[in-house]
């Protein structure tokens, strides 16, 4: 057991695991990974690489990052990292609280006071006097750097696993003035068993858009109002890159997921009514929008066009049976009626619509803290290299012990200048 633990926590195992993740990453970056909407990309790659396609299928390489063996290896990596981190913390504590270096190397005729003055001039501070030895240190806090970096990696890895495993996501589709109340259905949920519940009614009040002079979206912000216990509404703004935090949930606005919606009612000859909200993507002045997918209305499939700017501005809504490119669409103004594929259609009105992502993300705060710890450790690792100098005054001169925790050869010149030696003639403790 002890031997297994030693093997698992050895540096060789760490390097092997890093190499494993790197190789898997390279494979996963080269072979397209399956996700909704990438079927065509995968098919094209398979057509180009018929030999590799068989291997990819056999080993599940199109979903390498969610394969059981990759996740298992990541779990082993987390365990190894955790144990190694504990050992590093213990080592850093020993270095932090230890007695300091032993002064062994002698410099005949030197003065400890002169050396101490030169050390202090370049930033060394006297740490303690232990017996007859004076111990100086520079960037002493740097002894924690490696441990801090690895703590950050461990915390991030665990928080990422928690966040990925427990995030509840849904998509909320609202039109202007519409209210989503607790318990209402979402447009789509990632996991039917884990629906995020914000707990307060939310009303969509509209989208504000700014465009660049030459075209293209510059700013998009949506206003969502929430109702408190007294029944009053409080407006809140959510924009792309600035999600809204609400009751432990995060609400994201998405570029391209908003625009105008036409409210229409289709009626059959038998009097059956189908109210439909036809959503069009946002268009800039002079453009025309088309629905991304046809609408199925009681078995009749309809395409729609939205043209509010040009010659059809008076009757901006166009409808026709899906796939029928030969006939002219029926165009309607608000309040107007017409007939499409045997159905009577009435155009009731227009409003903005927007689609929001709602997520409950336990672990995200911890993950961001983990990231900060990694950043701190990385900067400490190469910004604060701890050096320590012990000096003992003797009858013949001075005995010294000098040590840099990392990259000691880079500080040889500093060491020898402090000790008053010719460059490269000093020794590490």
């Amino acid at each position: 057991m002890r031997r297994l633990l030693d093997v698992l926590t050895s540096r060789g195992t760490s390097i092997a695991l890093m190499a494993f993740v790197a190789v898997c990453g390279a494979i996963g970056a080269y072979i397209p990974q399956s996700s909704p909407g990438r079927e065509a990309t995968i098919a094209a790659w398979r057509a180009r690489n018929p030999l590799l396609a068989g291997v990819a299928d056999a080993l599940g390489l199109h979903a390498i990052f969610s394969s059981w063996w990759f996740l298992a290896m990541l779990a082993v990596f987390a365990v190894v990292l955790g144990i190694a981190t504990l050992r590093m913390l213990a080592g850093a504590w020993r270095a932090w609280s230890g007695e300091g270096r032993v002064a062994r190397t002698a410099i005949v005729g030197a003065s400890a006071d002169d050396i101490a003055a030169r050390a202090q001039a370049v930033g060394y501070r006297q740490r303690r006097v232990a017996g007859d030895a004076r111990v100086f240190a520079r960037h002493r806090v740097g002894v924690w750097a490696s441990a801090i970096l690895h703590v950050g990696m461990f915390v991030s890895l665990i928080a990422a696993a928690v966040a990925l495993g427990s995030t509840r996501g849904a998509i909320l589709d609202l039109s202007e003035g519409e209210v989503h109340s607790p318990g209402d259905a979402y447009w789509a949920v990632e996991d039917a068993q884990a629906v995020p519940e914000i707990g307060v009614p939310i009303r969509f009040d509209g989208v504000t858009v700014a465009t660049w002079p030459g075209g293209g979206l510059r700013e998009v912000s949506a206003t969502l109002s929430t109702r408190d216990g007294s029944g009053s509404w409080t407006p809140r703004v959510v924009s792309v890159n600035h999600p809204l935090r609400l009751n432990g949930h995060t609400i994201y606005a998405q570029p391209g997921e908003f625009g105008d919606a036409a409210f229409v009612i289709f009626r059959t000859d038998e009097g059956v009514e189908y109210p439909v909200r036809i959503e069009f993507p946002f268009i800039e002045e002079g453009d025309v929008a088309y629905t991304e997918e046809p609408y199925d209305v009681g078995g009749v499939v309809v395409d729609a066009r939205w043209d509010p700017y040009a010659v059809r501005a008076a009757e901006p809504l166009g409808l026709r049976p899906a796939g029928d490119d030969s006939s002219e669409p029926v165009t309607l103004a608000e309040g107007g009626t017409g007939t499409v594929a045997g159905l009577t259609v009435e155009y009731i009105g227009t409003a903005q619509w927007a689609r929001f992502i709602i997520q409950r993300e336990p672990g995200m705060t911890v993950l961001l803290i983990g990231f900060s710890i990694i950043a701190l450790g990385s900067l400490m690792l190469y910004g604060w290299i701890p050096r320590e100098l012990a000096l003992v005054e003797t009858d013949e001169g001075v005995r010294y012990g000098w040590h840099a925790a990392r990259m000691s050869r880079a500080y040889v010149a500093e060491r020898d200048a402090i000790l008053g030696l010719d460059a490269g003639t000093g020794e590490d403790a």
Partner: protein
Amino acid sequence: MEQALAIETPLHVFALVAYAIAAGCVVFGTTMSKPGIARAGHTLALVGLAVHSVALGLRWYGTGHGPYLTRYEVLSSNAWVAMTFMQALRWRRPVSAYLTTLIYPAVLLLLGLAVYTGPEVQMLPLTFRGVWLVLHVCFYFVAFAAALISLGHGVLYIARDTTLVQRVANVPDAATLDRESYRFAGLTFAFWGIGMLTGAIWAYYSWGRFWGWDPIETWSLVTWFVYGIYLHARRFYGMKGRSAAMLLLLGFVLAILSLFFTSFLTTSLHSEYFH
């Protein structure tokens, strides 16, 4: 704004010409023992850097966003950061001037490619906003410059016995080259890692997820891991010399792949970047 854009392109070309002459002077001066010519090259590089700075500033003003979106902007910014990094290093440690024989031509290549791709302006997409994106990009620029300096030492180490390198003035001994490549690889690892993390935070605010195994993200992680393996192997297994320099070369190739080539090879969430 349009005036600024009309001026920045000729200024970029001027900086390119200055860098070209500077690189020629420095390579010729240091290999042919003509210190006066090398000094003139360094002065010209500083002039080029000043003009390049103005050009990038005008580009920033003209487009309304930082120079980090199109190929032109990304390559030019990388060239600027690498040149600034090199000049800072030379100012702090004049002895490191030997490295300019590699870094000046590399900067010339980057800026030459930038000018070749053309200064077409692209408006910043909605998701490419915010302080986290700016931090993400800045840390990668610095990481790339550090990787370039590190590789420069590694290349000099590998080629130190060749006649050409032996002619370069003041090239330090093999141990110093090896040590310096290690130091700057450490800096690359630190800044690359922070660049990746700030990118994850930007992705979280933009798309609601911090990591998506997007090809550019994944290559970036692979690069970071390779630098991590390099640092572990050096510190704990005493790897140094030629094998260390070769591993560094692999890391640099991966860095180039993830920063500049992945967007050519595959579709990515970063697809607006480097186009």
